C-alpha cells in the first residue's frame, strides 16, 4: 500500500460522532471497488467506529495509525 494509491482523503478532524463515519460513507459512494481511501479523525471514538463500519459495510480496514491526537484509517472499498 503506497501513499500514491490513495484515491481520496476524508478530513474528519474536529468532527464528533457520527460525522466522521457519515462523511466517510458519503465519500465511499463516489469510489470504485478496490479504491483506497484515507480518513483522518480526532474523535477517540472513531477507532471502534471505523472497525464497526468496516465490518458492517465490507470495506476493508487495511491499516490504522494513531499519533499526535490524530487517527488515520486506510480503507479499501469493497
Amino acid at each position, binding site marked *: 500500500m503506497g501513499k500514491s494509491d490513495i484515491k481520496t482523503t476524508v478530513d474528519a478532524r474536529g468532527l464528533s460522532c457520527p460525522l466522521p463515519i*457519515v462523511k466517510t460513507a458519503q465519500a465511499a459512494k463516489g469510489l470504485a471497488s478496490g479504491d483506497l481511501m484515507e480518513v483522518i479523525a480526532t474523535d477517540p471514538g472513531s477507532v471502534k467506529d471505523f472497525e464497526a463500519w468496516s465490518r458492517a459495510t465490507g470495506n476493508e480496514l487495511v491499516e490504522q495509525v494513531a499519533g499526535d491526537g490524530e487517527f488515520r484509517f486506510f480503507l479499501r472499498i469493497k
Partner: protein
Amino acid sequence: MKTGMDETISLVLFSGTDDKLMAAATLAAGGAAMGKPVHILLQYWALDAFRKDSTGADHGLAPEAGEKGRAAFETAARAGQASWSDTLRAAKELGEIDIQACSQSMKVLKFEQSDLDPLVDGVQGIAAFFINAGSGQIVFI
C-alpha cells in the same frame, strides 16, 4: 460474516428539545452510514420542531440538562458540532432514511404537510409504522 446490518431501525421521536433531537439524529445518521434502513416517526413536540423554517430555531433542552448542561451544549455548537437538522439532512443524502409525521399528532397540532420542513417525507398512521418496522428494533426518544 453476519453483521445484522440488514435490519431496519425505527426511531419514534416524541420530545422536541434540541438535545433529544440531536441524540436521535446521531442514531439515524450512524445507522444510515452503516447501511441500515432507518425509519423515523415524528410525534407531538418532535413534530412541532420539524415545522417549516423552524428546524434551526432554539428548541431548548430537556430539564435534566440544567445550567451546566446548557453551557456544554452551547460550547459544542460553537465548536462546530452540526445541528440535528443538518445531521439529518446529511444522513438523508447518504442512506435510506424515511421521516414520517404521525397522522394523529398532525391532527392534534392542526398541521398540514405543507407546514413541515422538506426533511419530512410524508404522513403516516401507526399501522404503517409497525409494518415498516418489521422485526427490527424500535427506539422511543
